């Protein structure tokens, strides 16, 4: 009997020992081996590691008016499980009415089986308030940053836009994306079951650094005037596109830049792809007769001709075995270089270029900044096309002299005319006047790229271009109380076969005012105007309207009696 009891005791001991060992082993397993994993899980339940989005910088015009800013807007979400079945129809109808959407589609989404879903993102504030006031069950709001452009489509191409991922695209938003976006921060904090951060407990915060604020050289008043004039010209000409550039010739600051067709930067998802192209910097065209001013400036600067130098105009010029005609083939007889500009004579431009020579002409084309990007601080600039001199045929000296066989961007042409207007210095156009960050304000210093022509040459050209408006072909650009200087241009459009499209043109005007102390340089380009060769009339009308507004707006004292 005792033996049996002892045996039982031993068995019992063994069982207990095994159980104890098993419990001890399991304890070691969870406490020692799996400890880090369990600890991490426990911490995860109460601790959140949150990325703090950096506030994107504000973009303002030179007067301080807001052009682009980021504001958190409320996005509407639903937790379907919290909406009672008998309430879903009412909720769907209420939301559909306020959001202007189909209630059945909303109901279908609520019944789709999702635990949590966005109904509508970044609502207008009034709509969000109206929905909030209804106290609908299972409906809530979450703030999401939205880039807003208070001036709608104004300066859309200059500003660019921000895509859904928060990346700046095109324009200033694209070119200055790194500065504007700032640096995200991080917040690690313990939370209670209601997801509220606890004051006590672990808290590690690395604050977000907001993006730099930018102040542009752009003036909203002049920009609005430029866009109005461009719109009127395009409507009148039923033209598919065009652009206007307004520069301050004294330092290359861009005061206005308009491009059509345009888009709404706040609704770029529905925009036509072609409308995103900024025709002022991302598109080039043959400048036509606006080029003659640069050819003559080069020749006068090289002293191979003077304004009074004359030749006998027979209506055409022969160069490289090719005959290059004046517009409409008219002959003018004895003609001075000033009259070449006044009458926009192709044969006269060929005469001047022949005196200058291919090498010099090519050098000056490059010196005026054609054929290479201006270096403007905007995304997507193209260089235009100027073939290397080695690839020129003899006839190219003649065609280049009156703006055929090479392409420029409107901005390049404006910068070149600004060099004539300011006394001969080519400035790099720029759009950002200053940026402000935590360290203070950083102003952009204007960059004088090079001296292209002497001050005397520039003054002579200003006088000749003034005469072109006062006595010549650009009379429609004359201003009532101000002197103005400028030149028209009509260019053919190259086709895919290497020839030119028949009866399709690009009309343009490049000018500045007041003529002797210029404050604005303006280039206006109209693509395929319906009035064909007379499209320059609309370009000149746009110049007149814009220049008068800008001069009055800037309170420039008139230099002529009306």
């Amino acid at each position, binding site marked *: 009997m005792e033996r049996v009891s002892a045996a039982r005791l031993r068995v019992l001991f063994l069982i207990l020992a095994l159980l104890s060992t098993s419990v001890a082993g399991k304890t070691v397993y969870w406490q020692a081996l799996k400890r880090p994993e369990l600890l991490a899980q426990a911490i995860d339940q109460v601790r959140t590691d949150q990325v703090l989005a950096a506030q994107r910088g504000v973009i303002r015009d030179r007067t301080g008016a807001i052009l682009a800013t980021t*504001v958190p807007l409320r996005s509407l979400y639903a937790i379907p499980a919290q909406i009672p079945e008998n309430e879903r129809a009412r909720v769907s109808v209420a939301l559909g009415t306020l959001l202007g959407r189909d209630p059945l589609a909303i109901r279908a989404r609520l019944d789709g089986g999702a635990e949590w879903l966005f109904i509508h993102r970044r609502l207008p504030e009034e709509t969000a308030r109206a929905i909030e006031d209804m106290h609908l069950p299972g409906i809530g709001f979450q703030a999401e940053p939205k880039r807003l452009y208070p001036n709608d489509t104004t300066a859309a191409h200059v500003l660019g836009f921000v895509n859904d991922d928060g990346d700046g695209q095109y324009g200033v938003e694209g070119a200055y994306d790194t500065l504007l976006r700032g640096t995200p921060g991080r917040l690690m904090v313990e939370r209670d079951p209601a997801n509220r951060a606890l004051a006590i407990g672990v808290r590690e915060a690395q604050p977000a650094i907001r993006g730099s604020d930018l102040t542009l050289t752009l003036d909203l008043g002049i920009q*609005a005037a430029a866009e109005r004039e461009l719109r009127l010209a395009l409507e009148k000409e039923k033209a598919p596109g065009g652009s206007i550039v307004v520069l301050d010739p004294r330092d290359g600051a861009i005061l206005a830049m308009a491009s059509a067709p345009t888009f709404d930067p706040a609704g770029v998802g529905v925009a036509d792809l072609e409308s995103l192209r900024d025709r002022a910097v991302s598109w080039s065209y043959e400048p036509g007769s606006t080029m003659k001013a640069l050819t003559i400036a080069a020749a006068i600067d090289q002293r191979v001709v003077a304004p009074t130098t004359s030749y006998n105009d027979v209506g055409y010029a022969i160069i490289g075995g090719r005959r290059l005609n004046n517009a409409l083939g008219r002959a003018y007889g004895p003609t001075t270089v000033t009259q070449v500009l006044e009458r926009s004579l192709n044969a006269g431009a060929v005469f001047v270029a022949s005196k200058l020579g291919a090498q010099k002409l090519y050098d000056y084309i490059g010196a005026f900044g054609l054929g290479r990007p201006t270096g403007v601080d905007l995304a997507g600039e193209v260089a235009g096309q100027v073939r290397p001199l080695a690839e020129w045929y003899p006839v190219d000296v003649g065609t280049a002299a009156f703006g055929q066989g090479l392409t420029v961007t409107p901005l390049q042409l404006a910068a070149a005319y600004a060099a004539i207007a300011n006394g001969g210095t080519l400035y790099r156009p720029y759009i950002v006047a200053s940026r402000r960050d935590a360290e203070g304000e950083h102003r952009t210093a204007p960059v004088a790229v090079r001296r292209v022509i002497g001050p005397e040459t520039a003054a002579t050209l200003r006088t000749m271009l003034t005469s072109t408006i006062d006595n010549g072909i650009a009379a429609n650009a004359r201003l009532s109380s101000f002197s103005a200087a400028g030149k028209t241009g009509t260019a053919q459009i190259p086709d895919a076969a290497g020839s030119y499209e028949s009866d399709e043109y690009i009309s343009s005007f490049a000018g500045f005012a007041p003529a002797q102390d210029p404050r604005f340089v303006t280039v206006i380009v109209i693509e395929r105007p319906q009035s064909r060769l007379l499209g320059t009339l609309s370009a000149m009308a746009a110049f007149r309207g814009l220049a008068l507004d800008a001069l009055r707006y800037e309170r420039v004292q008139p230099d002529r009696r009306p």
Partner: protein
Amino acid sequence: MIAATLHFGSRSRRESARGAVRGVRRDQARGATALHRSSQSRPRARALARTSWELRSFAFAGAFILASFLLALLYLSQITGLSAGGYEMQRLQAERDELRRQAALADVQLARLDSPARIEAQVKRLGLVRVARVFVLSADALQAKK
């Protein structure tokens, strides 16, 4: 203490015997009374001392427990206050953020209303026309007249 009391007791008994010889019964009686008194007061003192010690211990323990309780209460109230303060801080931060958001929206609204394109559209809607001629006075001429 106990040993001293026993010693004192045997000496009293010897003195009592000598007193009988002398015939001083009163003294004997006096001695007996004194003995009775002393034998009665000593346990009381002892009891008193013990009671006092127990009271003191109890008081100390009670005070310690009370102090601990008060400290715990203070700690809890501090923690609760801190926690409630944290929630209040969060509420105020959320309120501040909302006010900032409203201010930003108001700025955008202001910029929208100030937009030249919008003003021009309003001008058109109101039927206003452009000034045909703008008269400018030359400051130089006025200066020369002075």
